[in-house]
């Protein structure tokens, strides 16, 4: 019997060395969702032990299309650390990832603690700012293929994020056009409405789901609400520029 700590070591080392590994469920065929979240927490604890600090949460599978892709009907979540934060307008090193992809998101910056079953009004009262964001997702599994417990154990594929300029929390972000371009050519066009019909629903889910794990959204946390379009694969030399209606631009360049 492989311990959960041993599984956490596998995904943590795969992430830190940018090496693809086989799916955990190939050997642990009965890995449960609860166990998978425990593996995720243990892998983040290893990062914390190396000095990384808490930065917030990411929500995943927040569109019906993505849930159908994985064959589930629930939202998943992962944890962000300060080491995952990248500089807007800066560079992303391709070599630090296995097979990175980028997707546009809406970020909520938390100003007051929030957890459990809350209303949209309560959630918005806890939000200090809203920002356009890009998330780098990078499954540590071969061929980006995984089951639900696999992806949860692997921190829900989260591996980096860019955050753009802050906007007031009163900004209506329910249906903002999003245009992602590579070297000036559109590759993804969508709307923030793809995130559960309204990204605020993802923040409510975050408050509910982290509370179930005995945690809460803390002041200073960033909550990435989920991808608004399909994810786009990254290769060195690309300049990624994503324009969010009314919120501005988030951009970066991919280097080797």
């Amino acid at each position: 019997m492989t311990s959960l700590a041993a599984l956490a070591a596998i995904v943590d080392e795969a992430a830190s060395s940018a090496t693809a590994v086989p799916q955990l469920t190939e050997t642990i065929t009965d890995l449960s969702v609860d166990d998978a979240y425990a593996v995720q927490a243990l892998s983040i604890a290893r990062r914390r032990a190396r000095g990384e600090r808490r930065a917030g949460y990411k929500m995943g599978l927040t569109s019906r299309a993505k849930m159908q892709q994985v064959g589930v009907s629930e939202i998943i979540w992962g944890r962000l650390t300060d080491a995952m934060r990248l500089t807007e307008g800066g560079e992303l090193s391709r070599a630090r990832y296995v097979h990175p992809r980028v997707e546009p998101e809406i970020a909520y910056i938390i100003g007051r603690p929030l957890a459990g079953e809350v209303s949209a009004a309560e959630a918005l009262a806890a939000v200090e700012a809203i920002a356009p964001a890009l998330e780098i997702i990078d499954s540590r599994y071969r061929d980006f293929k995984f089951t639900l417990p696999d992806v949860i154990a692997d921190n829900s594929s989260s591996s980096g994020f860019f955050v753009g300029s802050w906007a007031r929390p009163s900004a209506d972000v329910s249906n903002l056009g999003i245009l992602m371009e590579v070297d000036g050519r559109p590759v993804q066009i969508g709307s923030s409405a793809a995130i559960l019909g309204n990204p605020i629903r993802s923040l409510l889910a975050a408050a509910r789901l982290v509370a179930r794990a005995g945690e809460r959204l803390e002041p200073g946390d960033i909550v990435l609400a989920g991808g608004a379009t399909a994810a786009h694969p990254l290769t060195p030399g690309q300049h990624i520029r994503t324009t969010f209606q009314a919120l501005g631009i988030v951009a970066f360049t991919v280097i080797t």
Partner: protein
Amino acid sequence: MNAVTTSPDAIRAAADRLHTAASSGVACDPVRDLLAAGDADAAYAVQAINTERALAAGRRLVGRKIGLTSVAVQKQLGVGQPDYGMLFADMARCDAEDIVLADVLQAKVEAEIAFVLGADLDHDQLTVVDLLRAIDFALPAIEIVGSRVRNWDIRLTDTIADNASSGLYVLGSRPVAIDDFDPRLCGMVMEQAGEPVSVGAGAACMGSPLNAALWLARVMARVGKPLREGDTILSGALGPMVTVRPGDVFDVRIEGLGAVRAAFARE
């Protein structure tokens, strides 16, 4: 371009086939067997015959629709250009009124921006400035596309000949000035029973719906049928099209432009 031309008899036969399908409500075979491969001019000649037939029957021409405005759809059909079809007054439906599904063959819906002109666009060298000055207002729109061709088995010439696969359309009811919203970056969501079934943005339509409208205005001026004051332009889809079943209700919101609903009657 293919040098082979299509005979007038074949053009007439294609027009008859599509007209019979439309009036009988029974979808027909594609018409590409009658037209030279890729002969868009012949396909527009087919469309023109049925337009003349409609006008002779007293139908009122109220504008144009633009089709094939997304890069994905253009690639699918192997073309690098949009196409256009005619809008008649009897194709318009009101916001949220019950639509009889039998009024259109093989219906699908897509969200669009409609522009209504306050001036003629009859110059032969039009710019985006002429277009912006001519637009009286914009409205959110749902186009209910249809195909007289069985199972939507269409290539470029089939859809052009078939009036660009037009069917019906629904317009919102609150006109918005062209400088009061962002036609390029506006988000679009179409919901059915609370689920987003199609999402997109203005840029999905040829980079901007204004690009599509300007393309149309230039083509219409060139072929001697310029767009006129009062014309409605359905500028092209902002997101993927969705198949319609009886009783479906589709709510479209376009950021800054408002909302419009297409409600289909239960059969």
